[in-house]
């Protein structure tokens, strides 16, 4: 019969928890490296549904190029690694809250993102986008998409450009497989996505009538994210990233995961030599 009161108490506890969270965020030590070493593990936000950068294998393990990079960082710190699957909507929030120590999740650099998390340079990769459509679709340029339905994948950075600048009507899906199924079903004239993905499926007999129909838009560099306040950790990551390019580590991984060679990586290797 005292439930009214107990409920109030519950609500009060909930709000107390919220305040603790807010206060905790204020006090949180910004020395990520020290806290990682103290915990003995590094928590990294990664994609679990973006082949071949971060995806799930049949055993439930998350694998991919980005996971290899994250492992390399953990190895350098001499700690274990814990992978937390993230999506575009929460990857930066988790870093900001301190839930993850770092994030490496196919995030393209954008000035407004650099406001939220620190994105150390040099960037580890660059992705370019194109439109995959039927060879007889008559598409030649991005401007040809105007007013036409184009399948897209939620959270991709070039969606805005495709929709706003080129005037395409975006039909967005949860994953690229769903978007490709929609393309197959004739729900859109083409699918806008990463060139690397399309390069991977070009050999399939199923897609023989399709091709990348428009020139790839400028590659956008992908960066990993760390806490904004922790400049020390960001600087250390920068050094690691430089070494990755210098030693050709990312180029090697690119080969390992069957990704076509990206000019960006060669450029970076020459730059950091």
């Amino acid at each position, binding site marked *: *019969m*005292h*439930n*009214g009161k*107990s*409920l109030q108490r519950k609500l009060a506890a*909930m709000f107390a*928890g*919220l305040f*603790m*969270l807010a206060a*905790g965020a204020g006090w949180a030590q910004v020395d990520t490296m020290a806290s990682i070493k103290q915990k003995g593990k590094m928590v990294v936000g990664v994609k*679990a*549904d*973006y*082949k071949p950068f971060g*995806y*799930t*294998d*049949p*055993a*439930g393990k998350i694998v991919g190029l980005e996971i290899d990079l994250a492992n390399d960082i953990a190895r350098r710190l001499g700690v274990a690694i814990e992978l937390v*699957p*993230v*999506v575009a909507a*929460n990857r930066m929030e*988790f870093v900001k*809250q301190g*839930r993850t120590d770092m994030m490496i999740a196919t995030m393209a650099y954008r000035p407004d993102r650099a406001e939220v998390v620190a994105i150390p340079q040099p960037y580890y990769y660059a992705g370019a986008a194109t439109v995959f459509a039927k060879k007889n679709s008559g598409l030649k340029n991005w401007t040809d998409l105007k007013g036409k339905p184009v399948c897209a994948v939620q959270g991709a950075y070039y969606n805005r450009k495709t929709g706003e600048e080129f005037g395409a009507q975006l039909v967005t899906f*949860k*994953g*690229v*497989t*769903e978007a*490709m*199924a929609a393309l*197959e079903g004739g729900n859109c004239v083409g699918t806008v996505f990463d060139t690397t*993905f399309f390069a*991977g*499926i070009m050999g*399939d*007999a*199923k897609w023989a009538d399709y091709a990348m129909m428009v020139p790839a838009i400028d590659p956008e560099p992908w960066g990993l994210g760390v806490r904004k306040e922790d400049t020390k950790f960001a600087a250390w990551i920068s050094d690691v990233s430089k070494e990755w390019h210098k030693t050709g580590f990312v180029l090697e991984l690119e080969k390992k995961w069957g990704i076509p060679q990206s000019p960006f990586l060669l450029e970076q290797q020459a730059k950091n030599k």
Partner: protein
Amino acid sequence: MREVPPPARFAVLLPLRLHPPRPAHADRSSGASLFTLRTGLALLALLLASVAVAQVQARDLSVGVVELLIKWTPLLAKGFGFNLLISALAMALGTAAGLLLGFARISLLAPVRGTSWIVVQFFRNSPWLVLLFFVMFLMPFELHFGGVTVPFPDWIKATLGLALPIMANFAEIVRGAVQSIPTAQWEAARSLAFSRRQTLWQIILPQCVKRMLPPWMNWYAILTMATTLASIVGVSEVMTITGRITAAEARTDLLIPIYSYVLLWFFLYCYPIALWTKRLETRYAER
């Protein structure tokens, strides 16, 4: 003497019989027809057909759809187990909280009654997904008790979020069941010097259990199906894993079979519950 009138028209004149005896196979009538074995088998056949079609279409590709489904079954099973865990915990929490809230709804104190009414209405009439989002984003990812940090993982938050509507709906079941017991029993208990609490616990509630069980099981089946909502807030349950599998395989022909496969799992779990609920309802109604 006059003729005995047909009982249906003057039931009120006959000795009280809450539920007239049902004809045989009463449960096959009208609304129950959805729950026949035949419909279940038809659904199953439909799902198998979709897999077969995909398998045939896949003949020019290296790996057939059935092989893919088998390959990913262990991971899917893990995800599905997670759904069941979330559903069981949310049901337990929702039932416990709902019982208290249900008592508050029949409290003699007007303020308690009023507050609980607001709480029940709020949680019963809010979309589950919205509640889930609220809990996910309002609650911290870890709790600090002095110097100890206790992690507060996403799936627990999702469990709490799903327990809220169950709590409110179960509160209504409790209230309805208590109020469905004839008030004469309260009066009789009072005349035997039972306190209100004793009457409730020793006389009313034991009779309510039977009445509450079928709707409670119904809500459990609904909750189990609703656990897939947790995929939207990032919990690694079966739908999230299905999404990851379709991303890993990048095979458009796998989409329909794999989602049908997951649907089949839920069906095989929830359908017996529905059947059992139906049977209990019929059995209790006959007493």
